[in-house]
């Protein structure tokens, strides 16, 4: 292959999006003048010099993103192209508890079906688009301040940052209700590029629970390319639940960047149920003493789906702990990747860092590539990691069947048992039950399709 050909094929995806940039700018109206637009333009400039990652890149070694490059996705700027009703929304949100609700359709805020009224003093629960119009200076304080642009995907998200969920919690506020954010995606006519740009700022001593729920509602292939920035300020507690059940033909890439300050607690829950090609980058910088960071992950894969979870915890200061528990249930010819990196900087003495990654392969053709990466530069630390890949325990299956329970139900009970120590970490009881239900439903659907 000649040098010019190579370059063309590698950057054709980027060129398509750069060509779309000026028409995107035209749709910004007044926002064209906002300080946020400076951030977008800068990102577009960076994007210009980038290529989408290939498997030659160590961070993308097991995840070939070329299926995404087969499509010329159209940036989504309109929510009302699809007909979405309250009944629709109700079937996707988690229920049986009180919550604030932000609804986004194809990545664009859907005010009519959102419910974020009677808010506690000082809290902002709004859309990126609204805030850019109404309070761009506030938004500018945080956007792209925690996440640095380090690949073409997050450059693309930043260049086209248009809408997303923004939660800003003032100091000392205990947020009473969980904040639920639904992203409902339906690519009816075009292959859409949906790019939520989310921001959570948890003030000092605040406590909050956020559920962010990505759902596909049928339609064509779309690409959900997300960046979520989170600041957990001093002594705050942030429980962040991500539930992802995109269409089976959808592409889903998210970068989560959390920055934690002294004595904060950040719990990230990652439930992966959908998507054909999924990549999650979940990164935390522990930038203060006495910080706790917990990552819990559960992924169910089947068919030829591909799910890549990359986590990165950076211990920058002493006396912090991080703990990671990821579990996968993989069937058919699905592929999984788990790459867990822990970096302990020289100053970060008395660090406790644990990582556990387990998967059950239900089929001989399913495959998981797992790579723990511990980089430790301090000398007084406790770090451990463990990985286990196996199949369902035969003796346990025999135990259940010996009580009269048929094989398929015995298996799904064992899968539920395997998944339970992740789901059990969920602190919202009603959510726990509904997650269990999704797990069962997902497994049941498989039985039906097999028959």
């Amino acid at each position, binding site marked *: 292959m000649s040098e010019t050909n190579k370059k063309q094929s590698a950057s054709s995806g980027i060129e398509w999006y750069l060509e779309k940039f000026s028409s995107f700018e035209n749709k910004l109206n007044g926002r064209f003048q906002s300080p946020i637009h400076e951030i977008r333009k800068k990102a577009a400039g960076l994007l210009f010099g980038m290529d989408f990652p290939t498997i030659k890149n160590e961070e993308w070694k097991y995840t070939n993103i070329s299926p995404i490059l087969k499509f010329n996705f159209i940036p989504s700027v309109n929510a009302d192209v699809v007909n979405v009703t309250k009944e629709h929304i109700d079937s996707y949100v988690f229920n049986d508890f009180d919550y604030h609700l932000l609804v986004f359709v194809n990545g664009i805020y859907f005010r009519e079906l959102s419910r974020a009224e009677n808010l506690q003093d000082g809290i902002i629960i709004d859309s990126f688009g609204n805030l850019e119009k109404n309070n761009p200076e506030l938004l500018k304080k945080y956007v792209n301040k925690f996440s640095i642009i380090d690949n073409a995907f997050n450059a693309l998200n930043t260049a086209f940052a248009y809408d997303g969920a923004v939660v800003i919690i003032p100091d000392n506020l205990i947020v009473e209700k969980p904040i639920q954010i639904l992203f409902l995606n339906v690519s009816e006519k075009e292959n859409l590029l949906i790019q939520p740009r989310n921001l959570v700022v948890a003030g000092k001593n605040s406590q909050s629970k956020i559920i962010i729920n990505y759902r596909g509602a049928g339609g064509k292939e779309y690409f959900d390319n997300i960046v979520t920035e989170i600041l957990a300020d001093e002594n705050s507690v942030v429980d962040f639940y991500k539930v992802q059940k995109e269409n089976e033909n959808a592409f889903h890439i998210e970068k989560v960047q959390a920055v934690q300050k002294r004595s904060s607690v950040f719990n990230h829950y990652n439930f992966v149920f959908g998507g054909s090609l999924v990549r999650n980058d979940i990164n935390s910088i522990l930038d203060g003493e006495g910080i706790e960071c917990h990552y819990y992950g559960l992924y169910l894969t089947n068919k030829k789906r591909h799910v890549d979870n990359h986590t990165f915890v950076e211990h920058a200061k002493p006396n912090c702990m991080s703990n990671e528990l990821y579990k996968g249930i993989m069937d058919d010819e699905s592929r999984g990747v788990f790459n867990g990196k822990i970096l302990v900087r020289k100053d970060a003495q008395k660090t406790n860092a644990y990582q556990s990654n387990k998967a059950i392969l239900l089929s001989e053709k399913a495959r998981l590539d797992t790579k723990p990466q511990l980089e430790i530069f301090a000398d007084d630390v406790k770090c451990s990691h463990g990985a286990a890949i196996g199949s369902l325990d035969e003796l346990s299956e025999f*135990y259940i069947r010996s009580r009269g329970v048929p*094989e398929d139900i015995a298996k799904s009970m064992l899968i539920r048992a395997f998944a339970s120590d992740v*789901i059990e970490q969920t602190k919202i009881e009603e959510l726990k039950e509904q997650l269990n239900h999704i797990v069962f439903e997902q497994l049941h659907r498989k039985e039906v399709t097999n028959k």
Partner: protein
Amino acid sequence: MLSIKNLKANVEGKEILKGIDLSVNKGEVHAIMGPNGSGKSTLANVLAGNKSYEVTEGEIIFEGKNLLEMEPEDRARDGIFLAFQYPIEIAGISNATFLKTALNEIRKYYGQPEIGTKEFMDLIREKSKLLGMDEALISRYVNVGFSGGEKKRNEIFQLLMLNPKLALLDETDSGLDIDALKIVANGVNLFKNQNNAVIVVTHYQRLLNYIIPDFVHVLYKGKIIKSGGKELALELEEKGYDWIKNEEPVEQNL
């Protein structure tokens, strides 16, 4: 009820059962005793259908059916119950859900409707009371965080709930203190009637003080080398196993 003829079985290629003959009738309690490694647990597991054990020869007829052709769940539905030596923990599934699922599968097999919630709860209350079990255990996950004694008691609780025709108790007494042993034995005695049968697999005689066997069989190196009445158990307790190790296997005709 149960007829075992010339049963041979392997575990990981090694022959453990080397030709077992045993008949069990309704209303009987049989004790299978023997030193460690004699094949007692293997026999119990083969009867319940554990596929880690490979049957190489012989037959097992249970209530007129060829047991060796049946899946474990079908054996259970037809009335075989194995109380495990090491009960399995199942996180995320409560005892109640587990038992209700099992009970309904068995009822479905007999063409009966699913058990009603009240009927089920009444049954749970009745049976757990018999065993002095804390009702709170019912809503806990199956055996998760249970002590050794609680796990064994839970096996007997399942036995009472599912009410099979043939109960196999695999070393149910191991690891139990005397109070727990009495409770477990009491549960088994409450289960026992003229229409069912019990096979107690045990290393020690002490459980047989509370569950009185009609027959005692000594298993050694994969064969039954001696059979007798309940007094045989006492004799074994007194003398150990050494004195019978040289005996020829017995032909059993009951």
